[in-house]
């Protein structure tokens, strides 16, 4: 362990261009993060398409805490805690299903899928008991932006709209790629476990500096053309949206090449049904622009990552353990497109993914390295001298610059010292 004061002083651990290694490895800091980040800010939980029908539910999480994402009998989205308020028993042991009530297997207390206690077994011992006092725990605030469901354990605070800020434009850009403007996350998630702190993953998602090295093996054996996006000649940008949200903006490169679906490594002839549907929905000019720009590469702090063709959810489990949940993006009204999205996603991500297995190896080596005493500080200076503001006032830099990482840590320091 590194030398640490009894109470971490975050101002002395996070500097504008360097961070202290203990931020990744100290158990007390992890516990602080749960309280000050995961149980306070807006956290992505799931998508409306995962509970399409009344009474559908699916088990999700906010940090290490399991959450039942429910669409109740009236169709309203709810986030319930999976804990019987009687003796604390895990209420629901299934990952998903459709039911109007949840009954605890221990003493048979039964709850409506709105979270209200509706019945006791052996009721004669509970005379005069007010059932309203024994409902399920709830995530107090739910916010939904274009189908993306976020929850916050804080009763008060910024609205989801204020929190997402400039990152909303990335979600809009994403949904423009559906002829019907909607996502359907129906392919199920891969769950990739990593012995590393969650922030290494967060920082890597919009790091354009590493692919040329970490992914050189796949660039060498497949002619995807992706490798060129991450080299010093690329016109792609990194951007800090504020609030910890960051992106790797590939549009400058795609616009320079000016070919629809080039971003997806294909062309209009290969996806005729999709191109027809897009043209019908948006008109030829706008459809062409959407298909040139492609989808975003955006990390919404602290846990939602849209990686062009995939959706990742980062779940911290412990100071040295994180799970990445990942699925193929599926666009409503685009079956031929969706099939390719699934095939490419299955090849690249998850425990055996040709790309993500190497990222995950780096996270684990990052984590082991961070525990070594010397040097204590890790540097984030790349591109500092050429950082600038775009027309919206967001900080931007070259695709290989550490603009996103500095932005993440600025936001982190605000949250941890609030």
């Amino acid at each position, binding site marked *: 362990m590194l030398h640490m004061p009894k109470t971490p002083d975050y101002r002395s651990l996070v500097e504008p261009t360097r961070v202290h290694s203990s931020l990744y490895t100290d158990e007390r800091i992890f516990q602080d993060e749960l309280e000050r980040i995961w149980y306070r800010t807006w956290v992505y939980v799931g998508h409306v398409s995962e509970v399409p029908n009344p009474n559908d539910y699916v088990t999700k999480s906010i940090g290490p805490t399991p959450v039942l994402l429910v669409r109740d009998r009236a169709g309203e989205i709810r986030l319930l805690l999976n804990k019987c308020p009687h003796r604390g028993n895990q209420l629901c042991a299934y990952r998903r299903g459709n039911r109007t009530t949840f009954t605890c297997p221990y003493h048979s207390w039964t709850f409506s899928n709105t979270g209200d206690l509706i019945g006791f077994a052996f009721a004669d011992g509970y005379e005069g008991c007010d059932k309203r006092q024994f409902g399920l725990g709830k995530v107090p605030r739910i916010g939904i932006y274009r189908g993306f469901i976020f929850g916050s354990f804080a009763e008060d605070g910024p609205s989801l709209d204020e929190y997402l800020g400039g990152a909303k434009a990335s979600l809009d850009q994403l949904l423009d790629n559906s002829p019907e403007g909607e996502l359907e996350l*129906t*392919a199920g998630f891969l*769950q990739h476990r990593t012995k590393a702190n969650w922030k290494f993953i967060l920082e890597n998602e919009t790091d354009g500096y590493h692919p040329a090295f970490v992914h050189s*093996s796949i660039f060498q054996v497949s002619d995807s053309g992706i490798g060129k996006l991450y080299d010093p000649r690329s016109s792609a940008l990194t951007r800090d949206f504020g609030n910890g949200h960051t992106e790797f903006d590939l549009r400058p490169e795609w616009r320079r090449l000016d070919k629809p679906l080039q971003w997806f490594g294909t062309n209009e002839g290969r996806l005729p049904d999709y191109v027809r549907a897009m043209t019908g929905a948006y008109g030829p000019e706008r459809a062409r622009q959407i298909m040139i720009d492609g989808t975003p590469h955006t990390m919404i702090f602290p846990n939602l990552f849209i990686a062009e063709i995939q959706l990742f959810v980062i779940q911290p489990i412990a100071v040295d353990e994180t799970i990445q949940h990942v699925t193929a993006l599926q666009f409503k009204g685009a079956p031929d497109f969706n099939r390719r999205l699934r095939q490419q996603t*299955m090849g690249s991500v998850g425990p055996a993914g040709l790309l993500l297995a190497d990222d995950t*190896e780096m996270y684990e080596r990052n984590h*082991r390295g961070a525990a070594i005493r010397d040097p204590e500080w890790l540097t984030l200076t790349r591109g500092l001298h050429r950082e600038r503001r775009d027309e919206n006032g967001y900080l931007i830099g070259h695709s290989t610059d550490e603009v996103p990482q500095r932005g993440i840590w600025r936001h982190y320091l605000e949250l941890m010292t609030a």
Partner: protein
Amino acid sequence: MSSTSASSLTLAEAASTGSDHAHRQEDAGELMHRIEQFLYLEARLQDTHAYDDWEALWTDDAIYWVPANGHDTDPEREMSIIYDNRSRIRLRVEQLKTGRHHTQTPPSNLARLISNVELVRQEGDEVHVRANMLVFEDNLRGETIWAARNEYTLRMVEGAFRLARKKVALVNNHKPIFTLSFLV
């Protein structure tokens, strides 16, 4: 020599009787032996990172499938850990051979056991086989034990078995799992 039941025959005894029944016993025993030898060969090539030799076991129309979230999902609609056709099997091997697939540099140290081999059915030049598998993996992270119920379709091609289909159903594939970058 006479026998009271087929199950009491040893292979050697059956061979000496000359009856049709005994011949079938002998053929079945020989077939199972060849199947087992093939599965052990594949296991050894995987454990020793003999990438080219392993790739050569596959037929041109092969499917290599490691499902997620259960054992009976639809890989054409749902996410799988691996769902490779022949060209992606090749890509997977080519990536390993670059020496820069970091998660396998250094390569995992592996030993696997193949057991409970069952011949499910025989159809023309193909046999459908089940087997359990236990893999001990040691790498930079530490030690991991992987268990799976495997299903194989083996096709006889020019007198030798080839892999036409392999399904590796990890028993814990509904839970988060560590990186699985060796040849499973």
